[in-house]
């Protein structure tokens, strides 16, 4: 396919989606706002190495300099330019959260599916284990696993993933349990459809919307958990600019009143988490008409 045709086909899919969201009023606009925030931050992180004014890892000015025209977000205690660090600092957080969402999805969804479809003892055993994880304080599990596995993007993502697998399992399970009793599924079964046809062609498409909502909320949680793990010293490395790390490191400077060192990275984390929360909130309102009044 030529490039122009790919562009056209992408647009052809995007535009109806966009008009659909706009037509849905406030919830649709919230989703759009969330998508814009996330898209902007991802793009910013991707192009940051080329556009950031200074090298974020090098000393480029005086230490702890308040924001000025030369350093719009000031400098930290190592004399590094905060603006360059803020521009580049999303990469680890985005990688960790994306990877953890992927792992959660790949493990939680299939288990939820088969557990609820098969039923019986297998289902009960799965639910018991999952509920035990669910009841546990999420951050504590993430800390324990992270402490055992050691630092690194993949390890951090795995330890966060374990915490959120139960959310996927539970939503998929409850949906499948109600959908599989519906008349159209029964009709398919009566017509002699095979079990995998029923599962993948009849039930799965109806579960996708709920999974998408859980995934976006999971994204926001993963961002915050990653920041939390970094804050208590289980972060990836000190070498790569990271909002979580800047916040952790800058905390020691607040007694000197250096607000700029923590404020900007902190707001970036909030913005990223807020973007995903907006998408999740808006979608869940769109998909659950019962909540709308």
């Amino acid at each position: 396919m030529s490039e122009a045709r790919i562009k056209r086909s992408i647009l052809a899919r995007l535009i109806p989606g966009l008009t659909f969201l706009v037509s849905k009023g406030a919830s649709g606009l919230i989703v759009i706002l969330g998508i814009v925030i996330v898209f902007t931050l991802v793009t910013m992180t991707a192009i940051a190495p080329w556009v950031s004014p200074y090298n974020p890892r090098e000393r480029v000015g005086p230490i702890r300099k308040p924001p000025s025209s030369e350093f719009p977000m000031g400098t930290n205690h190592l004399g590094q330019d905060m603006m360059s660090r803020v521009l580049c600092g999303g990469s680890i957080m985005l990688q960790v959260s994306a990877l953890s969402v992927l792992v959660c999805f790949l493990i939680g969804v299939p288990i939820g599916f088969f557990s609820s479809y098969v039923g019986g003892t297998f289902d009960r055993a799965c639910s018991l284990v999952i509920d035990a994880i669910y009841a546990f304080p999420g951050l504590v599990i993430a800390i324990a696993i992270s402490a055992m596995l050691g630092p690194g993007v993949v390890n951090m993502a795995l330890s966060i993933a374990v915490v959120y697998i139960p959310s996927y399992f539970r939503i998929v399970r409850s949906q499948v349990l109600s959908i599989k009793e519906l008349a159209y599924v029964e009709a398919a079964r009566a017509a002699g459809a095979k079990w995998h046809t029923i599962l993948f062609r009849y039930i799965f498409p109806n579960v996708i919307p709920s999974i998408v909502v859980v995934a976006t909320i999971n994204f926001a949680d993963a961002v915050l958990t990653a920041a939390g793990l970094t804050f208590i010293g289980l972060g990836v490395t000190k070498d790569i600019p990271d909002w979580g790390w800047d916040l952790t490191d800058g905390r020691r400077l607040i007694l000197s009143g250096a607000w700029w060192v923590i404020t900007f990275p902190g707001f970036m984390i909030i913005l990223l988490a807020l973007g995903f929360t907006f998408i999740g909130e808006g979608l869940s309102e769109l998909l659950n008409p019962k909540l709308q009044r």
Partner: protein
Amino acid sequence: MGLRAYIITRILLTIPTLLLLLTMVFIIMRVLPGDPVDLHFEKKATPEQMEEMRRLLGLDKPLWGQYIDYLGGLVNTGYFLEHGYPNLGKSMQTFEEVGGQIFSAFPATLELAIYSMIIASVMGILLGVVSSKSYNSILDHLIRGFGIVTYAVPVFFLGIILQLIFGVYLRWLPTGLRINPVVEPPASITGLYTVDSLLEGNLFKFFESLKALILPSLTLGIILSGMFVRLTRTNMLETLRLDFVTAARARGLKESTVTYGYALRNAFLPILTMMGLQFAMLLGGAILTETTFSWPGLGRYLVDRINFRDYTAIQGAVVVFGLFVTLVSLVVDILYAYFDPRIRL
């Protein structure tokens, strides 16, 4: 089922949950890749030193032997009666009893948790009620926005910002520790400084410890209040449209009586369940809040031990967090059954 029978069944049902939880912690700490002793020494010890450490901590036994030691230590009533805390093994760093260290750190976390929960629920429920009463107004949107934003703010960031404003710039409140270091802490009776100082009859100490509590519990309370705002709002909107509320209004009762005495009372049960579920989140938040405010509780202990790579202590702290959450959910379920007899059916 009577209330007593329900309570007994519920307690019995806790046993398999606990066993599962303890096994999960064991799997994470001992079976997953990463050997505690290797990690502790970071490859800076001789094989003899490492063997010695394994032998001292019982880590030289096969896994099932360690598992039995671990569960056996927890249910060893003799040890419990002698020390007043369960046997959680010895610290890799100091070789002191982990149970004792945790026992002395626990009240700080409990005090922080109680005050945060009070702030979160009072603030959340009030805002939720106001929001539902002014449905679809600007105030309603603002409160809903607040609910969403609290969800996206890292708890430690809020803590640092509050420290910066009230501790560094305004100098109104201390930025850390449970009590001003020049003041001697009250004699330990419950371990909760605000309660102990009142028992001692020392109002000065009471206000000092309350002052230290304000910022940490406000931080955690604000972050948790968002959930209460949302839940109260949804439940109130549903309840306010029910017939009995209209009937109460028709009888000429004051609007505030209708709202708080009738509607909120009925919307309260789901909120109570939420409090139980929120407790797990609260403890997670407490770890970060304690680290921000140098609050000497269980979370701070856990983070300190992580920095020392003290894996037996980490395991002990994780177990206690789990036990705490299980206990709270047990209490919440029993309270729920007490308030709503339908649940016992």
